């Protein structure tokens, strides 16, 4: 375990294939909602992330899926220390992210990168592509002069933007969505990170373009042994790209495990609902009936019992009183549901 605050500059120091690179321990992020002048009661917080624990082994890809409002975007920002948790902690390569500051934080920023959802807003509109790709080098004082230009060209080539020189002087508004997303990926790779969080990386791209960006991300992650996290609402995308899948609901983990297990044999009733509702590009596939009401409650105020109790077809009395813990339902496969508790 590295000392907290130790400068995180060395790539070799990070545990990779054998250990877990990122560990979340009972992470909570509550957002205060302004109510009155006289302090806040328990009912005045929005539970963005409500007690989430998981570990990401180095070199693997984790898909975090769920509907809007489930907390996946908030969790992504917590993993990158754009937000700090109100409780719990996130440990990156053995160091609690909350203890980082100054040079140590800058070191972390070199190791963990982000791809944003909207390609048209990912690059500063006043920068040329070349300048945008130089920014990480400038911030971290990597290379100098001609060497920086070489790195920029190498990065553009690696994301299949040919010929690289032609893109250097272009502005973001001159590029297509797919090209911009590739530039965003190239920029993230400029600092040679070991961890990449991609927030809905292809949801705003045309369908025929998505496959290209996804294939590229898969290939690069494999060749660089990147640990990746994909945030997505699209289960078919998660199934295509990720080794592990985590389903979130109202700020909690509903189910987590190897992707094939979770999506082909879902155990948690919510996962089952999502899988049943997911549209399939096959007209002969019989669309299942879904009984669950579509209304997702807003997580304000203290939590009681299972978050899914209002919509669950298998709800039991215990679901109203006790929050279900994550229990094993298969090898490395866990679900937070009373149905699978050993005592039942």
């Amino acid at each position, binding site marked *: 375990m590295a000392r907290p605050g130790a400068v995180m500059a060395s790539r070799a120091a990070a545990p990779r294939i054998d250990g877990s690179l990122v560990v979340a321990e009972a992470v909570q992020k509550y957002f205060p909602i302004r109510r009155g002048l006289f302090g806040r009661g328990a009912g005045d917080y929005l539970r963005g992330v409500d007690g989430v624990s998981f570990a990401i082994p180095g070199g693997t890809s984790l898909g975090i899926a769920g*509907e*809007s409002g489930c907390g996946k975007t908030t969790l992504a920002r917590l993993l990158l220390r754009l937000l700090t948790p109100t409780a719990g902690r996130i440990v990156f390569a053995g160091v609690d992210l909350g203890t980082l500051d100054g040079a140590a934080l800058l070191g972390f920023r070199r190791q963990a990168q982000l791809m944003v959802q909207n390609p048209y807003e990912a690059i500063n509109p006043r920068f040329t592509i070349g300048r945008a790709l130089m920014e990480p080098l400038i911030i971290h004082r990597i290379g100098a002069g001609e060497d920086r230009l070489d790195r920029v060209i190498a990065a553009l080539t690696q994301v299949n933007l*040919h010929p690289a020189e032609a893109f250097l002087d272009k502005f973001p508004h001159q590029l*297509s969505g797919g090209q911009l997303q590739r530039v965003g990926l190239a920029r993230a790779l400029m600092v040679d990170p070991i961890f990449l969080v991609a927030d809905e990386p292809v949801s705003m791209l*045309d*369908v*025929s*373009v*998505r*496959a*290209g*960006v*996804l*294939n590229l991300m898969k290939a690069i992650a494999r060749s660089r042994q990147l640990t990746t996290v994909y945030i997505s*609402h*699209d*289960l*078919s*995308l998660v*199934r*295509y790209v990720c080794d592990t899948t985590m389903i979130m609901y109202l700020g909690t983990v509903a189910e987590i495990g190897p*992707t*094939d297990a979770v*999506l082909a044999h879902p155990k948690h009733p919510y996962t089952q*609902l*999502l*899988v049943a*509702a*997911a*549209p*399939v*590009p*096959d*007209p*002969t*596939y019989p*669309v299942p009936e*879904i009984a*669950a009401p*579509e*209304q*997702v409650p807003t997580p304000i105020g203290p939590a009681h019992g299972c978050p899914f109790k209002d919509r669950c077809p298998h709800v039991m009395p215990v679901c109203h009183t006790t929050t279900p813990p994550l229990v094993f339902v298969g090898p490395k496969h866990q679900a937070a549901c009373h149905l699978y508790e050993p005592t039942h």
Partner: protein
Amino acid sequence: MALLTIEDLRVEYRTSRGVTRAVDGVNLEVHEGEVLGLVGESGCGKTTLGRAIIRVLPRNAGIAGGRILFDGTDLAALPEPEMARYRWREIAMVPQAAMDSLDPVYRLGDQFHEVLTITGRLARAAARARALELCDLVGLDRRRLAAYPHELSGGMRQRAAIALALALSPRLILADEPVTALDVVVQHHILRRLRQLRAELSLSVVLVTHDISVIAQTCDRMAVMYAGKIVEVGRTVDVFARPQHPYTMGLQNSFPNLLRPQEMLIPIEGAPPDLLTPPPGCRFAPRCPFAVDRCLVDSPALRELAPGRCAACHRAEEADVLRLHAREAQRWRVPVL
């Protein structure tokens, strides 16, 4: 029985850089009581086509030719006051991001009231009764009529937009990306409701989307659009099982399937042509793995290959063989300029 027949429709946009033909010679039929899917990617002209049918094009756009025959009347040639009699009464539209198109300063009930009394010329009591009826029809809680749009979820607002379109019992509805911004469970419910409405009200629906899984789940027939032209038409099951146009094959290749994760996704490289100066031949030829010399000079017409099955491809007869080759990833690596 064709409710709507579009013949050689051309719609142009006048921009500062010149004239773009967003819809270039489209022939399409919508039958009574069917859900027709119109699928294509951004810029293919599908939204423009929908808006041209109901004649709500922006000021710098105009119908440059062709006919839109609805029950024998050419809507394209109608003067505006007459077209207003068709709009909302015979043909209605659920526009893109409809849930954001509700007026934020009026309650839902008031917006229903306005459509029903002003356009529909119903009396007050009749309008109120109809508003309640519409809520039940789309699955919206009646109490929501008292709410403002921002108090409702995305799914509820979308249902409200659909209800407004159905207000005067039109025979045809144009739904432009009706479920794109919604969560998957809501999407499922709304699409199912749309299909039920089709049966209950003997309604015809044209569903415009970029998502082929929505088409697979909801539409009886489908039309694929690319760069302003229709490239393939047919029954949904037929088009999915045996696509005849390389673009349709490419779309299928690039679309992830939750049930078939092991298949490699193959993107279509390149980008659609600039419609200011479209290429002389087939518009898909620069990106097509099966293009031959003829494709670059001769624009293929949409021809009927079997009853109800049309494709705009010179090599459509070889479709069975091409389909097998389409699964080979390296064929799609065409030189990108």
